[in-house]
């Protein structure tokens, strides 16, 4: 039944005060974007540690966009902290020879419809060019 199989998967971590509402606004405008995007609501992007991103890549995501509210965040320190974590995730990605463009930090506001679409489309285009993530070690296969 799975028709999305084989297409690159994008994980979007979207904050409730920013990107997630931006995604909702995009929905309210009924604008089309590729369906290989999986949006998870998060309170604040500072909650994730670098290893989380690496695990997500391992699990089969080919691109990750963190959509937070940047400096408009209701959480003090969220933006600085997130930047630090993403930077150290980049270090880990370098080691594993993962294209750094696969992880993107974007400031998306609650009504940022255009920027939201822009980020999704850009990532999608990028993944179309560089192809799915080739892991040095085979991705963990689910056993069910």
């Amino acid at each position, binding site marked *: *039944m799975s*028709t999305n199989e084989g297409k690159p998967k994008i*994980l979007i971590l979207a904050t409730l005060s920013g990107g997630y509402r931006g995604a909702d606004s995009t929905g309210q405008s009924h604008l089309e974007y590729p*369906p290989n995007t999986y949006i998870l609501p998060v309170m604040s992007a500072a909650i994730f540690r670098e290893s989380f991103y690496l695990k997500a890549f391992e*699990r089969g995501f080919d691109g990750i966009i963190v959509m937070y509210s940047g400096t408009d965040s209701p*959480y003090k*320190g969220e933006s600085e*902290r997130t930047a630090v974590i993403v930077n150290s995730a980049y270090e880990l990605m370098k080691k594993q020879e993962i294209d750094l463009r696969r992880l993107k930090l974007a400031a998306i506001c609650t009504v940022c419809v255009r920027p939201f679409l822009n980020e999704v489309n850009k990532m999608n285009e990028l993944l179309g060019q560089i192809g799915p993530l080739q892991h040095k070690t085979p991705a963990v296969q689910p056993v069910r």
Partner: protein
Amino acid sequence: MPEKDESQAKPREEPRIGVYVCNCGGNIGNVVACDNVARVLGKLPNVVTSHSHMFMCSDPGQNLIIDDIKEKGVNRVVIGACSLFLHEQTFRSAVERAGLNPYLYYHVGLREQVSWVHHDNPKEATDKATRMMMGGIAKARYMRPLEPVRLDAGKHALVIGGGVAGLRSALDIARRGLQVTLIEKSHYLGGHMAQWERVFPTHQKARVLLKELIERVLAEPNITIHTGAQVVRTQGYVGNFQIKIRQEPRGVHGAFPNEQEAVAVCPIKQRREFDYGLSTRKAIYRAYNGCVPESLVIDWENCTKCGECVKVAPEGMINLNEEAREFDLKVGAVVLATGFKPYEPLYGEMGWKEFPEVITLAQLHRLLDDEGPSDGKFYWNGHPVRDVAIIHCVGSRQIEGVHRPQPDGNVNNYCSRVCCTASMSMAALIRQKAPDAKVYDIYEDIRTYGRGHEDYYRNAGKEQVTFLRYFAEEIPEVMRADESADRPLLVKVKDHLTWGETIELPVDLVVLATGMMPNPVDDLIGMFKVSPGNDRFLLEVHPKLRPVETAVNGIVLAGTAQGPMNIQESCAAAGAAASKVAALLIQGEVELEPFVAVVDPERCNGSGKCIEHCPQEEALTLETFTENGRTFQRAVVTPANCNGCGVCAGVCPNRAIDVAGWRLDEFEAMVEAITDEIPAMEGAI
């Protein structure tokens, strides 16, 4: 039923998940094959029951969940429906009604983020919906019951803005027995309403109505008013906002008999804001006669402290060295009633500033006011005004690419709602003051929508106001008339009521019916973390579900801060805001969501990393414990001060601290589940 007994005996042992997929009356169901999604999900481990339903949010939909919890022993609920911002609360209370902890439910957005954005691609949308739900189910397996954080709430509200909406909401909150502090940036109450001459639909004198309202507010013992006051810092959360307010001094204390003299000796002349610059005032002045508070005030920005006024005033009445004072307030909720400002046309926009005979509708109000700069005579530049053209939609209904953008690059693409009826009501007033004047009304659409407003339109016709209709793409031209002409200006309109022909209107005065813009309150937006919408007015959560609340708990909107409104609508919105504040604070206690940091005592070894990085004051402390004779340090959370930002969770070397409801292991499980195989199904889509 043995199942039930088991689930009650060991509720956290085995997750029993109920899955519900809402069709949303076709909003989701027309794109996502909801029935199939529900059937597929029913095959996942721990899923006890799985349904697709037309409207999950309806009573039958909610009852379905309740029945499953009660009868099938469901102890985790996953719902795929519209945005969680709309109905998370709805379903939480349904789950709670069934006796289950309301946080054992997870909401997946299938409408705004699936069906509405992938309508051209139903197959992939269905696949995505299934995976998103699988993620939700994975999270559900990890969810734990949470208890909301209960906080004492100050039975005290702050209203920011002393215009009609602020006054009205302060009055309504106070009448409910709560304390209210009302602060107003300027030195008098009433806002723009004080500047209007008449108000529709009753054609009453605006200041008479306003005075009545202010008197009711002043008579209310629960209300404290500070004028010249602004918020400078905020802290805290719903129920307990700590707010620092700075109040500019008036410099003048009370009334004294020779006020006129004190004003007369002041050497400074400034344009009078109250008259929209149509007259001047001194640096010691009164906004208008009868304003509240009544005493004179010093315009500190322009006062040179020459001391002339001090010399004539009685001893101690004027103090030019008075300092601003700052004070703190603790309030449970805040009403933002920061109001609007009239749109300021760009230079040359329909002759604005290019020709002195072009004024705004707001200025016309002052011009026709008996207490205005011309004492109510319809004079301009010392001559009686004979012929007037009123042009609608100046600064409203603008179109990108057609209208010149404002300095910030925006155009006002909204209707300002009040200008049509206001123009009609002013036209009637012109007719009263100048019975023989020719009045031309140049409009796009006449929007006299409200109760009694159409009467104004009809009466304007009867008063022989001539209407002409223009299209936004062909803005009327305002130009200087020939030297020989007996009217200084000529307006050229491509009139669509006259077969699109260009009609020339010789006039003495052009009135631009300027629209509404929100008052610039970037400082408050930053401090309170509320957000403006695309139109730059403050944004409500949802126009119908929560029309006066902002996304920040405890901050509500009243009046034109939210969008263009007339006085009646501002007062209604203010009442609605007061209702929300009263409901929030009347119990003296507010509940906060339990999404705060929690420490796993097993794992915490007191590294102190979290405290080092925690951006919130007094949210985390390192405490020393003694247990079984062993002394050790451990992080302790103060829930009221923790906002759940999760910085601590990201830095803890031992993964000992996490945000309740948003745990890292939950996220990891979701990521796994989303990328998992979808269970096969016979007769698959």
